[in-house]
């Protein structure tokens, strides 16, 4: 029986991009269904993710899996005939999970503050974001990828932010590249991987979407 895999997603979503990369890396064929989040949510989304009503949702043979990092681990465990995202050593796994959680708590939050605010809140958002990215740079060290010599869980979790940096920089009038050159180099390296490049949304289109969000939520 062939697997039926459906992804409920929206193109600019950094969380959705994570899943698209993971599916590409594992060579999984799937149906992409676009949710227009600035419009009404589809009945399927509301049915498959009644708790959060958010994308991405992976539907595997009719059963929904929600939350991008949960989806990544699910994909890794089910399609285990392909190279794993998470290392096998429990301590290394705990570090990957710790930093992925850090990204979701801190990087996402500071990015939101930069995009959706002005003045002091935005300034603090910029400072916090740079601080977080520098900590991630520290974690990367001299490795090619967070996963070592190949793309891993943490790389997949973070790389979608690379196409959002342009939006943060433009709205916030600052340069992430100047402060975090190592991370930028890592980002370029990742985007040189075909599965990553084809899964990421164009940064200019992301910026257009960010402007729509700002307008929708009354910023400026």
């Amino acid at each position, binding site marked *: 029986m062939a697997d039926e895999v459906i992804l409920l997603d929206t193109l600019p979503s950094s969380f959705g991009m994570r899943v698209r990369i993971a599916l590409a890396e594992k060579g999984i064929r799937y149906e992409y269904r676009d949710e227009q989040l600035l419009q009404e949510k589809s009945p399927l989304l509301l049915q498959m993710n009644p708790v959060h009503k958010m994308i991405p949702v992976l539907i595997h043979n009719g059963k929904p*899996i929600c939350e991008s990092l949960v*989806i990544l681990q699910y994909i890794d465990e089910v399609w285990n005939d392909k190279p794993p995202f998470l290392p096998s050593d429990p301590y290394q796994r705990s570090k990957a999970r710790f930093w992925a959680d850090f990204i979701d708590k801190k990087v996402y939050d500071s990015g939101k503050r930069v995009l959706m605010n002005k003045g002091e809140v935005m300034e603090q958002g910029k400072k916090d974001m740079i601080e977080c990215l520098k900590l991630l740079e520290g974690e990367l060290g001299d490795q090619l990828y967070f996963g070592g010599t190949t793309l891993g869980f943490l790389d997949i979790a973070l790389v979608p932010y690379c196409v959002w940096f342009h939006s943060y920089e433009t709205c916030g009038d600052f340069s992430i590249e100047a402060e975090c050159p190592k991370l930028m180099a890592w980002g370029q390296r990742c985007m040189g991987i075909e599965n990553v490049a084809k899964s990421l949304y164009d940064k200019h289109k992301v910026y257009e979407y960010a402007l729509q969000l700002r307008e929708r939520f009354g910023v400026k």
Partner: protein
Amino acid sequence: QKMAKEGLLLLDMWASPFCMRVKIALAEKGVAYEQQEEDLFGGKSELLLTSNPIYQKVPVLLHDGKPVCESTNIVSYINETWPSPPLLPPCAYGKAQARFWADFIDKKVFEAGGKIWMSSGDELEVAKKDFIEILKQVEGALGEKDYFGGESFGFVDILLIGLTSWFDAFEKFGGFKVEDYTPKLSAWIKKCMERESVAKTIVEPEKIYQCVVMLRKMNGIE
């Protein structure tokens, strides 16, 4: 200050529901460990600050000197390092369900409860309503099962039962009973409290209540 380089050292705080999660998990696995009580208000130890520089919070589990931080992450680590008895279901979908609800519980339950004892008046009523709504969703995840994972006490049960040590305080300050709104969840709490690992770990509600009274004073509430 202990510098246990061999074996396990838990950086702990007696009232922390997050530390209780880790202690229950270690007890379920039958693993021995040392504890170091942190004085979070008087001064965090050097070991805590160097082991968890990002958040500077407990719990931290040091295994042969290597730190694991964030309680849910620590419970996952414990489960993977000592696989028996397993805390997660064997199938990938069951694991995904468990991780989803772990994430929900982590994002919502304790913070909503905290809003209850930190507010008053209208804000308190809103906080109470939100907390009950969240508990109802969690109760929905339990359904008719004995435990969140099914027939065995596991990952989600451990993550939630630690937090329930604070429910009595939420109830007292909120003027309500969890049992009146989520009776199935209350029954699940009672069932879990019969397990040795849980009974030995969960701090008496009265002591937590006194801790919250002190926290309120410290934060200038009422």
